[in-house]
């Protein structure tokens, strides 16, 4: 029965809206997340949902998924008004959601996660494990996704987990498929794959909601765009009526002159970080490079190339087998984050939730963590100066939060990222390693972060940036290092670097 899921469902009429949300309102303590928002989806069309961080996109989607109850408004599916009280209701109505935060059970196999919502069963009611594995394999083959269905999900890199999530949305019949930032950690190749899948879905008459901060993707895949700002509905237009600039203007209410500002003039200074012959038991092999004060050193690599491992090894988080890391001439003790941090190196991690956020704690505690000792006199924390420092960063980065005491789990993803970046900037650093710094961040905030990185480098910081975004790599980096399978395969200067050369080195 599952094999037929990808054929056109004749029962879906193409002229009735698959979904009509009208006047949706939702408030959280201290925040109006949504205020009278409309969203209409037509069958077989891709509808992009855009807006700054905290605009309310995920909230709208969670209402659609039955996760949150709405405070006001109506929802009609296929022309029939309904209530979506629980995720189960939504699933039954044929709404499949790929959430922004990965929603898989890491202890389960990939195949089991695919069928989490409804296990195929045998006649006696027991779970048909063979069917599950076979169907998962068949599904993956169909969408050209090469992953072992028997692998433990938690062992997969983030990008593959995200693909598993997407595949999961296809395992059962759906009328509406919603994707909340599905590509935030996908490689370009996987994004292509995803688009093929989306086009297949629309051909079947399925309505797709697509949330992304990546303008190029939106222009490529979507038919219609709805823009939200501060929880309000700003515009809904066919994509053809938009330009890059008009879309950005709708989203943030202003124009962005230059996404990749370059104010730095001076050349790079002395060596701030030097890594020699670094190898780990798991992935890295003989990596050597230098980063200079005042430069942005970009790292590129395909998924699993080892950038995250490199980042964690340099800051002393993961053990290393051989190699020497020095900061400003002082050698680091291996596997010792504390001295690394005290010598002035910090890592903005790729996995916010697992390694960055203290979810239950307020914004203030989250932001001041790394710099806390600098607010302390004789072991006592001066909370006054701590708070004013935090407040100034909240203002500068435009972190959207009702107060400094808001538990950080209630902030939108982008705002959480800003808090974590601020965590490091509050503390004087010599080297900052940023791993996918703009993952899940809106254009406005992106340009702010880019400006910030530029300014930090201008102030003499060595910035090491691991990113999978080619434009941001080319736009910001002074030099670009490329990794493949745990080795450093090439280093280009800003002038030498082209997309082809970089990709060639990454495949090598």
């Amino acid at each position, binding site marked *: 029965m599952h094999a037929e899921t990808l054929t056109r469902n004749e029962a879906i009429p193409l002229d009735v809206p698959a979904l009509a949300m009208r006047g949706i309102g939702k408030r959280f303590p201290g925040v109006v997340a949504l205020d009278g928002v409309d969203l209409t989806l037509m069958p077989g069309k891709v509808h992009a949902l855009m807006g700054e961080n905290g605009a309310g996109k995920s909230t709208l989607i969670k209402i659609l*998924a039955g*996760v949150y109850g709405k405070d006001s408004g109506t929802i009609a599916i296929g022309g029939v008004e309904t209530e979506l009280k*629980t*995720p*189960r209701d939504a*699933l*039954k109505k044929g709404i499949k*959601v790929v*959430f922004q935060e990965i*929603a*898989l*059970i*890491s*202890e*389960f*196999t990939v195949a*089991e996660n695919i069928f*989490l*919502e409804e*296990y195929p*069963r045998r006649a006696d*009611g*027991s*779970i048909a*494990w*063979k069917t599950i*594995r076979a169907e998962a394999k068949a599904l993956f083959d169909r969408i050209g996704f090469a992953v*072992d269905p*028997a*692998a*433990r999900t938690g062992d997969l890199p983030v990008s593959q987990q995200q693909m598993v999530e997407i595949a999961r949305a296809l395992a059962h019949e759906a009328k509406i498929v919603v994707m909340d930032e599905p590509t935030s950690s996908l490689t370009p190749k996987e994004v292509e794959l995803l688009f093929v899948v989306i086009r297949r879905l629309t051909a079947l008459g399925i309505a797709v909601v697509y949330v992304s901060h990546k303008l190029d993707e939106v222009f490529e895949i979507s038919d219609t765009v709805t823009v939200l700002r501060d929880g309000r509905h700003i515009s809904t237009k066919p994509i053809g009526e938009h330009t890059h600039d008009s879309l950005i203007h709708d989203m943030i209410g202003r124009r962005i002159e230059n996404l990749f500002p370059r104010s730095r003039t001076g050349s790079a200074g002395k060596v701030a970080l030097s890594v020699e012959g670094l190898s780990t*038991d*798991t992935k890295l092999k003989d990596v050597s490079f230098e980063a200079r004060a005042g430069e942005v050193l970009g790292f590129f690599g395909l998924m699993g190339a080892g950038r995250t491992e490199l980042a964690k090894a340099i800051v002393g988080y993961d053990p290393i087998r051989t190699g020497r890391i020095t900061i400003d001439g002082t050698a680091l003790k291996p596997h010792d984050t504390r001295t690394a941090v005290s010598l002035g190196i910090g890592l903005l991690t790729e996995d916010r939730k697992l390694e960055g956020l203290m979810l239950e704690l307020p914004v203030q505690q989250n932001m001041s963590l790394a710099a806390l000792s600098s607010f302390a006199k004789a072991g006592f924390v001066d909370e006054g100066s701590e708070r004013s420092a935090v407040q100034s960063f909240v203002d500068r980065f435009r972190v959207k939060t009702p107060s400094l005491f808001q538990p950080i789990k209630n902030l939108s993803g982008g705002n959480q990222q800003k808090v974590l970046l601020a965590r490091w900037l509050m503390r004087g650093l010599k080297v900052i390693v940023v791993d996918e710094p703009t993952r899940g961040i809106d254009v406005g905030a992106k340009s702010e972060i880019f400006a910030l990185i530029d300014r930090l480098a201008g102030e003499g910081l060595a910035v090491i940036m691991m990113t999978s975004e080619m434009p941001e790599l080319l736009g910001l980096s002074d030099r670009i290092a490329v990794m493949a399978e745990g080795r450093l395969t090439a280093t280009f200067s800003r002038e030498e670097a082209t997309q082809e050369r970089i990709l060639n080195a990454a495949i090598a």
Partner: protein
Amino acid sequence: MPQSPSLSASGSASPGLARILFRRSEIGLVVALLAVILFFALASDTFLTVRNLTNVLGQASLAMIAGVGVAIVFISGEVDVSVGSLVAAVAIPLITVMNATESLALGIAAALALGLCVGIVNGFLAAYLGINSLITTLGTLFILRGGVYLYTGQKAIPDDVMLESFFQLGNGRLFEVVPYPALIAFALLLVFAYVMRHRTFGRKVYAVGGNPEVARLAGYDVKRVKFTCFIISSLLATVSGILLASRLGSAVHVAGLGFEFQVVAAVVLGGVSLSGGVGSLFGAALGVLILSFLSNGLGMLDLATEWQLVITGFIIIAAVGFDEWKRRQP
């Protein structure tokens, strides 16, 4: 890809024998159990007799039955420490009803009814009202024990009718060899291991414990799953309590003091994580067996209680420490 129906916790049928061996902590436990048995077999000549081995199986079965339930609750991401008092409490309706009606079936029904009520209360408080389950069950642990003392006036209630069937339940042996409690324990273990692996309910328990938010998004009724786990745990503890009452021939107000520690230690030793979503019932059962054989063997060596305590403590640390170390290996 070769797929064998595996009963591992994660339900993963991993390729490659080496990976299976390293993934499945039960292998380590089996080795540990065999090591314990081998050691005592060499150290004491009365240890490795059919009579002694079956004795231990019978003795272990009470903790095993309750341990299966506690493990299920652990896997669902909650804890249940009320079992220590529950095993004593259920004996009261059991014995009282039997004394009044001379019917074992009615007595068992009464005991199960009380177990069910406790399970419902635990489950309601922990799953539906959202009170931390350690607090909830610590609370019911105290309340039940206090209730038993109040009700019995701190005296045991003797079994006046002395039904042979009741005596046999906890004291008899199949073919004069295998104690009935051991048979009951293994039957329950197999049933629930099957449920946890091959029924959707079991997988829901793992999912709910592994990541409740994800489970909710997948359309599971997280609260109801947890609620059910508490009921299962209480009912299984009731079965333990019934067998215990049969072995003690009465409702003993001090029965099961500290039983919850014993069960929790065994279950954790068996690799069932306190943080939920991880572990298997076979592991939990092996944990119980290891501790039971250890206790029996140390007794055979004529070691004083104090040495037994010290040695058991160090062995728990060594075993769990080794397990953690193994888990950290790539």
